[in-house]
Structures are given as C-alpha cells and as structure tokens.
C-alpha cells in the first residue's frame, strides 16, 4: 500500500475515526485504524466492538493495499504536521510497518494484520429513513443531556427512538431520562419509519453522531434493525449496536393534570438560577423557587457560604414553593430558544413540565428536590 494525501483531508477523517477508539484497550487491534487504499480512495475504519465508523477520503493511491495502524498515534502525528503539507503513507513488503512521510519528517508505525480487525457488520437493516441534518441535530440536542450516565441503568444510557402518535399525528419521537428528568422531542414521522422497532441508541454513538452531524449539509440516511443502527452521509458510515434493554413506559411519568402554570423569559430565568446557585452547595445544587402571584423568588443557602435570593417577574398567578437541582434547570432552559418558557406544576413533590412556548416539539419533565 502506498499513497499520498493532503494533510488537512487526512486529519479531518482521522479526527472523526480516532474518537471511536477507546484510550485504554485490552485488545490491541481495537487501538488501530483499519486503512484500505484502492481506486483513488483511502478508507479508514475504527471500532470498539459496539460502535464502528467508516470514512472514505480521496487520495493519490499509487499502490493499493490494506493495513491497520495505531489510530491515536497516527492522528497525533498528522495533527502536528504543518498545515498544507502532503502526507505519504507506505506499507513495507512484510506488512508489519507503515512509514509516514511529510517534508523532512518520517515516522515508522507498527502495524497489525487486517484480518484481526473485527467488523461488527450490520446484517439486515430493514427500516430505512432519512432525516435532515438540522432536524437530527435538534433531536439529539434537545434530549441527550437527560441520558443517564449510571452504568447499572444500562437501559437509560441512551436515547430511545421510536414511532409514536401525538393527537392523531404520527411522529418520530426521541426520549432520554436519567430518572431525575426526562426530555422528549418529536418530529413528523419520516417516510420509511412507519413500523420501525423502538430502539435505544447508546450514549457513545449519540456523542459521535452529534459531532459528525455538525459537518453534514444534507439529510442523514438512517437504516436500522432491532439490534443495530446505521447513519450514513457524505463519505461517513457510523454503525452502532443498540442497547439490549427495555426503555421504561415513560408516558406514565409525564403528568397530565398539572394546573399551576407560569410563563417566564428563559434567559432571565436561567441567568437568575445561575446567579443564585453560586451559593448552593452539595451535589444537589438545590435552588428553591417560591411563586407568589406574578413574583418568583429564587433562593439558595449553604451552611458554609451563606445565602442568596433573587426576584423575577413571571406571567401567571399561582402560589407554590418547590426545590430543584439548578444544573437540571439550566440544562433545560439552555435548550429553549424561544422568548418564553412555560412551567406547569402540581406540587412540591410531583413532576413539573417545562416547555418552550414557541416550540411544541420538545417537552421536559423535571422532578423536584425534597428540601
């Protein structure tokens, strides 16, 4: 295998694929990037056995071939090369070493046999749909902050993507929860999604996908089965195993009878939370919200630091005192782009619904703190 490629092109692709490689690997081949050079294209692939990324980039291939080389090392080398440089990659005849040349720099990297590289394969992916990149971005952004990071709650460690119905309209819905808050986003059901299985896309796949979608201009092609999902766009294909678990019946935790409604400017609200929570201590970062007619009083106190209060004007007429984790409130308000957000409350021990006044596609449920 021998090829040359512009540094910027190689770096962009390596940036994408190296990120799937775990920093610590007990299986050496998983630290490597699979490289295949043929017909004017270099394809790069990495995997952690659950997630696989494959990207192709144009290159001047003078001799086709395949090998695997340490992904992070190769990425670091290319990253440190000067901008605008050309990079030459050449595999020795034994297939054990790859030389990286650029200008006066030369590196020799140990290679592992291509045959050892595991490919998770996709099998049959019967459901096919396409989502515009901007919509997929919104779907991820509105929900991903609520995914659980607690490993024993493996079934909450991702976004639940499924077909649903809202007031008679078929929708594609994404839901994430960590048991403290829940985020739900929906969009009209794309063509081809009807009859799809409900799937839980793992956190890592969501993170990688989110980074890649930023560079995508067109629609993302999605194909899936009950066990795997594949996202394809431009020259990138991301394939992930799905979480083998049952997502809880989330509908039952979205309250329907909450009758205390207040509206507030989300920017004013989040700034006030941010300021007041400077004082709150502990993991819970507790902030108390006291509603009294058109006035909201936010307060926090800490045994060490002291106390804080701030008053904010709201639209509504309700009296209630309730405590929340400030970080959770900020996570939600940061997703609200409109000029008004609506809080629908019941009491100090029940879930509160938060929504963007101008965007019904997202809904957030937040559980209070017992203070």
């Amino acid at each position: 295998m021998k090829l040359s490629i512009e540094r910027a092109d190689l770096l962009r692709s390596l940036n994408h694929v190296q990120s799937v490689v775990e920093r610590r690997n007990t299986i050496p081949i998983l630290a490597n990037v699979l490289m295949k050079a043929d017909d004017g294209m270099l394809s790069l692939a990495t995997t952690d056995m659950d997630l696989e990324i494959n990207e192709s980039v144009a290159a001047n291939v003078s001799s086709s071939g395949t090998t695997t080389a340490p992904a992070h090392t190769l990425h670091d080398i290319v990253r440190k090369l000067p901008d605008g440089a050309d990079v030459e990659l050449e595999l020795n005849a034994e297939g054990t070493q790859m030389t990286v040349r650029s200008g006066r720099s030369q590196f020799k990297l140990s290679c592992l046999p291509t045959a050892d590289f595991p490919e998770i394969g996709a099998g049959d992916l019967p459901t096919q749909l396409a989502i515009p990149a901007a919509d997929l971005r919104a779907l991820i952004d509105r929900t991903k902050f609520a995914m659980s990071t607690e490993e024993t709650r493996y079934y909450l460690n991702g976004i639940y993507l499924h077909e649903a119905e809202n007031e008679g309209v078929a929708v594609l819905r994404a839901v994430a929860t960590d048991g403290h808050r829940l985020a739900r986003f929906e969009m009209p059901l794309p063509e081809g999604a009807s009859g799809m299985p409900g799937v839980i896309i793992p956190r890592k796949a969501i993170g990688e996908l989110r980074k890649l979608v930023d560079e995508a201009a067109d629609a993302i092609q999605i194909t899936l089965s009950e066990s795997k999902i594949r996202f394809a766009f431009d020259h990138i294909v991301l394939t992930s195993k799905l979480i083998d678990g049952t997502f809880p019946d989330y509908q039952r935790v979205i309250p329907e009878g909450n009758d205390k409604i207040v509206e507030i400017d989300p920017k004013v609200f989040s700034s006030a939370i941010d300021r007041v929570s400077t004082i709150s201590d502990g993991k819970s970062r507790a902030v108390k919200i006291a509603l009294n007619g058109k006035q909201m009083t936010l307060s926090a106190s800490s045994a060490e630091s002291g106390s804080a209060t701030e008053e904010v004007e709201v639209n509504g007429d309700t009296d209630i005192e309730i405590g929340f984790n400030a970080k959770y409130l900020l996570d939600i308000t940061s997703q609200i782009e409109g000029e008004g957000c609506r809080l629908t409350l019941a009491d100090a021990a029940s879930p509160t619904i938060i929504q963007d006044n101008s965007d019904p596609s997202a809904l957030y449920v937040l559980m209070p703190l017992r203070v």
Partner: protein
Amino acid sequence: MPKLSKAQQIPLDLAGRTALGLEDYLIGPCNKDAVSWIDRWPDWPAPVLVITGPAASGKTHLAAVWRDKTGAEIVKPEMLISRSAEQIAGVNQNIVIDGVDPWLGYREAETTLFHLYNIFKEEGRTFLVTSRMAPSHADFAIADLASRFRAAPLASIHPPDDMLLGSVLIKLFSDRQLKVNNDVVKYILPRMERSFSAARDIVEQADKLALSKKRGVSVPLMREVMAALQEF
C-alpha cells in the same frame, strides 16, 4: 429559609414491567401445590379454583400463567357489582377474577359470583379467583356461595423459604432491569421479613434510592435501604 444542602432528589416513577410468563414463575416447596392445580387443568373437581396466599406471593402471576395456558380473560372484581353474571360469563370461555376478597361479604357482589358459579358449572366451564384470604376464613354474606367456595379446590401459596425468597429478590430486581451481585441478595436475606411483600417493598425502595442517588444497587446502598425501612 430551610437548609437546602441535604436536599434529596425525588426520582421519576419509572417502575419496570413485571414478567408474568410461565418461565418467570419461580417454583419452591411453598407454591408447588398451587402450581400443580394449574398443571392439572382442565381436570378440576369444581368449576372454580381459588388461589390464596399472602400479598405479593405470586397469585396474580400464577393466574396470568393460567390465563396464557387457557386463553382466559382477566376481569376486574368491581364488575361483580357493575355487570350481571351473564355479562361476565360472556366475556370469555374462561375467566380470572383477580383479588376477589374485598368483595366477599357484599351481598350484591356475592349474588353475581353465585350466579357466575352456577353458569360455569352448568356449562362445564372453569374460572379462577385469587384471594389473600382462604374461603374457610372469609366472611360470606350468602351461605350457599360460602359452601361452594369452601368445597372448591384451593391452591394455597405459603410463606417462602430462603432459597425461593432469594430467587424472588433476583427476579424482582431483574423485572426492574437491575443486575445485582449475590452479595446483595446474601446481605438482604437474613435481614428481611420472610414474606413476598417484604421482598417487593425492599426491591422497590432499593430501585428508588439507587435512581435518586445515581448509584448501583450494592451492599452499602442496601444497608441504607434496610435502615430506612426499619425506621419506617
């Protein structure tokens, strides 16, 4: 202003689904007689089988196993006062009335149940009722119904032994998609009340506390759960 530093996060009520299949039903010495009555169907000596046992002992689960076996329909016991015996009998060839005991002693409900018994007997059909109380201990309003129910076969579920209780704990955690080590079960068993309902409460509290604290279910967490339950 209240002190907020010890604030505790209230978790969402994301309870798991209870697995009610035959393969999920755990059999031990305390319930094997009850299971044998289900296996013996349709060879029952009366049109009705009564499953009795303490709260959370698996009566509903065993009834669900029979429902799956026979294609029966589960009817709510409230229907004994809102519907006629003919209407209930028309629901399905075989029916299950789950949790009948609150209605025993009510003449109106018992009258429907009595007619139901007669319809099923006449037509050679079978139905199953579950009750915490055995018919011999229940206070019936209609003597004829009492005698029929007391003569009916009784599938009793007794308090569990340690081995079954351990398996029940594992099943209850697994219903909530929680994987626990043997250490956790070994820690709970000698410290818990010997009942199915205690197992259910312990697992529910463990799930809630783990979710609230974003921790796994471990022995230290169980220590907090058991302490809190004892206080309660």
